[in-house]
């Protein structure tokens, strides 16, 4: 070959070697079809398990993330919670245990936190609606119209709460679509009345809350919500809860159950969370307010998911390793079996690297077949899992690419040793090998 066309010649040469070796490799593998198939089986399952495990892991993670995202990543939630530590003697003497967020807190937060968009005060009470064939449990939510801006829900019919409802203390209610089916199965909803604790509320709107009822992450809204203006709730329910049960009684005064605070942007959420914490701890000496930041939960969930993926990945990696060792084993056997062929090739002038290439390509072809079969199986498995167990699975392109890359690397890594061994054979000994 002239030096002139060496460059173009070289690339053509490589291409030629490649195509021929691949064809030759496939032929050699087809010669022992069953054996080749059994060899790649380990890799097939390895790759399939990588894809399936990642799909299940991603599916689970996706579900959690979806739910957290629904709360809104720019929202901070303050909850009143009954302090766990024993109250001091002086406080115990009081008739009510007083704790939780106050109207004043809402006011203070509204005035102090700079990057805040809206503060939604929420009062919650569980209630039963008795004037039906069966009693229906509802959750009465006293709030303002801003609730519907912060919590993502879709308005099905009518309207949501307005500031006028608040100011005029109108006895109106917005109920969830779910509740309409229980409360008004046959009647038209809007304009009808729902009776709670002796008061009637006119239904002015129906909303559909997003997400399913069996969500793992606690969401702010629930399927059995009845939303009424906060001022009305305050007027009719008061702040004091008295419940007498058998052996225990609840006597407590909680002004606000919840404050939903929507920030201007995601970036200020962490800082505002800290500011809220110091603000609350200044005025609340008991540990009676918990701060929930969905964004942090999101980070937490992402972290958990990463850990989950690493664990699943390691398991899958082990199965890939086993598959790779299986391939190496067979290739070593194949090298021994074809010692004479290697001797012949070396005798007629094959260089060492050409022998290495030949065997390496054979292994890579083998592992690619394994990878592709594994890919198909890996696509089928999550589908079957979803079909039979109802778990959410998510096959990502990333996992498909990853598994193919892995199977090729397995071929190269585990093919290298047998290939090098083949090329190191002494030509004469190899020729005489029977």
């Amino acid at each position, binding site marked *: *070959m002239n030096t002139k066309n060496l460059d173009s*010649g070289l690339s*053509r*040469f490589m291409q*030629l*070697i490649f*195509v*021929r070796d691949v064809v030759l490799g496939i*032929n*050699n593998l087809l*010669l022992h079809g069953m054996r080749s198939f059994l060899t790649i089986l380990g890799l097939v399952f390895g790759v399939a398990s990588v894809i399936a495990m990642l799909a299940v892991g991603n599916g689970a993670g996706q579900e959690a993330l979806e739910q957290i995202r629904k709360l809104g990543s720019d929202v901070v939630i303050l909850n009143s919670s009954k302090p766990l530590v024993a109250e001091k003697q002086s406080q115990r003497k009081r008739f009510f245990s007083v704790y939780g967020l106050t109207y004043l807190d809402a006011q203070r937060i509204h005035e102090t936190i700079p990057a805040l968009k809206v503060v939604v005060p929420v009062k919650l009470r569980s209630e039963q609606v008795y004037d039906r064939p069966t009693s229906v449990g509802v959750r009465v939510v006293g709030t303002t119209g801003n609730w519907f801006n912060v919590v993502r829900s879709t308005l099905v019919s009518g309207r949501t709460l307005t500031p006028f409802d608040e100011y005029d203390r109108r006895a109106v209610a917005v109920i969830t679509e779910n509740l309409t089916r229980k409360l008004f199965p046959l009647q038209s909803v809007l304009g009808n009345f729902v009776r709670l604790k002796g008061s009637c509320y006119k239904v002015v709107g129906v909303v559909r809350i997003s997400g399913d009822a069996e969500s793992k992450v606690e969401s702010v809204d629930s399927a059995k919500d009845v939303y009424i203006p906060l001022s009305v709730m305050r007027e009719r329910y008061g702040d004091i809860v008295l419940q007498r049960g058998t052996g225990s009684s609840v006597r407590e005064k909680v002004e606000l159950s919840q404050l939903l605070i929507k920030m201007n942007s995601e970036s200020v959420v962490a800082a505002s969370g800290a500011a809220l914490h110091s603000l609350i701890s200044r005025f609340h000496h008991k540990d009676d307010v918990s701060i929930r930041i969905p964004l942090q939960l999101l980070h937490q969930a992402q972290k958990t998911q990463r850990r989950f993926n690493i664990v699943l990945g390691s398991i899958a990696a082990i199965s890939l390793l086993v598959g790779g060792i299986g391939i190496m084993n067979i290739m070593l056997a194949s090298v021994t079996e074809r010692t*004479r*062929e290697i*001797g*012949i*090739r*070396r*005798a*007629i*002038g*094959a*260089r*060492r690297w*050409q022998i290495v290439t030949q065997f390496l390509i054979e292994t890579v072809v083998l592992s690619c077949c394994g990878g592709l079969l594994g890919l198909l199986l890996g696509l089928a498995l999550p589908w079957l899992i979803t079909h039979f167990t109802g778990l959410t699975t998510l096959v990502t392109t990333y996992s498909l690419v990853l598994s193919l890359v892995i199977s090729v690397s397995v071929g190269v890594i585990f093919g290298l040793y047998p290939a090098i061994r083949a090329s190191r054979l002494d*030509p*004469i000994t190899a*020729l005489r090998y029977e």
Partner: protein
Amino acid sequence: MTQQCGEIIRLCRAERSYFSGDARVKALDDVDLTITAGSTLAIMGASGSGKSTLLNVIGCLDRLTSGRYLLNGVDVSTLDDNDISTLRLNSFGFIFQSFHLIPQLNVLENIELPLYYAGVPGGAARERAKDLAATMGLEQRWFHRPSQLSGGQQQRVAIARALANDPDILLADEPTGNLDSATGWQILAVLYDLAAGGKTLIMVTHDQQIAAQMEHHLYMRDGAVLRAQVAQERQ
């Protein structure tokens, strides 16, 4: 082909020994040999006399333990494995007693193999393989596997393969050993023709009759050259 009369192979005090158990066996013992380009040489001797080892050393399949081997004036011991493979590829054509074809490749593919290692593009290699097959009378057998061919045909394929890169030196290790005499003579005729065409032919054989056709004879015993003679002058 320019140095028709020049010396092509020179062995000086060539020694090849290996260990068989504890004993050190000298397969080649102090061999001096000069071969001129275009000549023919028959290496003869009893089995175990080292004739195959000598052929392997000449063909760069084996290395000397001591002594020097000059091929076209180049000391082969200074070359690395890659260069030696290139020598085998371009300068030598091997013909073996048991043909040594690759069983899973067909006739054309077997002949193409050296071309392929030399980097000849696929189309050109195929053309050359077809030409070679034609000269060896194998036109009808292109896509047969070695197992579907007779011994004589297999040896023809092997010769075609040996000729693929147009080497100067043909090395034949008892090429007729596995053939019946009629077929054997046909194969030999092919080899003699090639030698007449200017190739250097070195052949290991038992058969006096076969050797009689060669210019130079080398008798070996226990790894050493017993007797070297010029049998006939080439016309």
